[in-house]
């Protein structure tokens, strides 16, 4: 029975580590996506600024 308890505890510990990993990796992936989203946003801004400058030139 003792080793059974021990094994159950180990399974629970492994599950906890796995759950914690999944939670952390979710955050890191989100941060990674945010870096890229910000990059795309800046590229779009650059494009808009180019158009704006062009329009200014026309006006």
């Amino acid at each position: 029975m003792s080793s059974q308890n021990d094994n159950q505890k180990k399974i629970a510990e492994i599950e906890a580590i796995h759950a914690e990993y999944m939670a952390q990796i979710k955050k890191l992936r989100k941060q990674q996506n945010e870096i890229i989203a910000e990059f795309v946003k800046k590229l779009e801004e650059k494009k808009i600024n180019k158009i704006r400058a062009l329009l200014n030139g026309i006006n």
Partner: protein
Amino acid sequence: MVEKKSAEDTEAGISPEQVEIFAKEKENEITKVGENAVSEGKQEFENAIQAGTKLELKKEEIDQVAEEMQVGKNLQTKQEEIDALTKESKEKISKIVEVQPESAQEEKIAEKVEEQPESIEKKSAEKTETQPKYSEEEARKNWKTLSMEEKMAYCDPKIVSKEMNNDLQLKNSPESKSFSSESFSENSEVVNENIRNLVEGYIGESKISPEYGEKIRKSTEDYINLISKAQKEGSVAENLKAVDIQKISEDIVNKMVYQNRESFKRGLGDHGVRHIIDGNITEAMKMVDEYNKANPEKQLNSLDRLKIMTIHFNHDMGYTVGVNRKGFESTGDHKYFSQKLFEGQEDMYGNLFGEKDLKQIGETIKTHDEAQTDFEKQPFESIVRLSDNMGLFSDSKLPEIFYSVPENMAVLQKIDLARKSGQSIDGLKEKLKENVMKQEGFDEDTRKALINAAEEINKMAPDFNLGMLAGKLDGYEMQGSKMIVNIRESDMHKQIQDLFELNQKQFVKALDSYGIKLDKMETTFDQYVKIDADGTKYVELPMSEGEPALRFNFLPEDLNKKDERNAEVKKKFAETATEWAGINIRAEINSAMKELKESKEARTSENIDSVSFELQAQLDDKKVSAEDREQMSSLISNLKSSLDNEEEFTEKLNQLRKFLTKKEKDFLAVK
């Protein structure tokens, strides 16, 4: 699937081999998830570059943006963090399997330990008393490197309780009436009266405002009345003691007053009365009503409602733990702290709830922000999670600092403008504080707390706070095992959307929390939503096998239900925008700099003179003074001396970009 297997095995008994197989499975899964995360990042970066090309930007221009933002470096750091986390988690699992007693001798040793239960208890007690590894400040810096056990060492229920009691200490003890007998059912009105006295005590000594105090009292009264109802239903014990229920009710009042006070101190997110009572509990109760209407044969009863309320009162208590009072590194783990704090009070709550209920409450506190939704099999948990996730759409989370001082909405707009112009926001933070000092109707504690909150505002505050106003919850309907959530676009949303370029950000965020990643799917919100025969935009989320568990209806603004606050905010926004448009020279500067910034060939002495001439000619005397013109000329002339040094030239160009006129400085409170 693996989880299911392990749960069954836990009941039946597990062999060491099974532990090893289970560990291997989990290790492999972690490796795969880690690898996917890294390759996904690389792929997304490639996609972003392609998106830049589609925008007809030159390679040099894309590279320049990437370099300015240090995208490559930041991504690499993130990927290193992913690798480190993957490695660390696998090592932790290996370590558990390594100490697996394999030989018969080890089994015997293990059995000996089994024969001395007190030694196990002692060991487990020692485990929970792990000392914090670092100071709180250091711990925040190293939070990601700490194991869960090490993290939990920062949450000591005794300290939290002591800090709460100190904060809530009253000079005059509220009147407490004696009970006529031990029985709660004979004394429920006395409990209500004593709770009313306690709340009045807090209001009287300015621990909480009368408005919020009344909400806490009413919610606690609902809770006490639900206990009486549950007794009549037979879902809680008949012989509850009045003194026990009073203690639980006092605990709820104390936690609500305390969380509200703590929440005032933070600029990001509101975890006080508006979030917990006006938001989560109100929405959850509406969901229970709808669920019960559609499921008369398996209704959630008063005990379930009590448990849901208990979860919501306790679910964010983890934010009050010392290490979470500053910074944001550790706040994501608040739910584990909240669970630990609740479990530390199981003796008290055990006087109302059974063991199974207590376990369910603790577990659901821990998983309150997860996406898993299944109204067929887990209606209780699904309602808790959905009501918390929907916080985005009730304005219940709008931080106090902006909500309480309307003038600060304009400051928030200026923070956004300052951010876009690359300026410091320190002066605006001071402005926030001044506004708080001027505003009438705050007690001293609230004022102090708001001043603290102003300190915490960062440049991302506009995104964070205004995004929360995207839409409003507008009722629920249950169809079979599918919950329909109506989200109505708020009239404030449109102006905020235009002003802060938020688009459908919050809707996208809501979908994201349910695993639908539009950016990865290379689609926009408007492309993703479906439209039914009535023209209603909707999204269905298949959370379990078979039918979808959730459907979000995105309804247009209801013209008959205007929010009174909006007129004032709209006026304020418009005034600020007009004022800024009348004084700022951002467009002129950016346009003048454009050629010098983008083309290296254009960086000649003659061109710089011509840029200077053109800029001065373009600028309106209403916007710039003679002194401003002089300073600008000097900045442009400085460029000439750096023509041979590209790095220096870029830096000086940046100085020109950030140049503010006297009027702009005054507007953005830049010294």
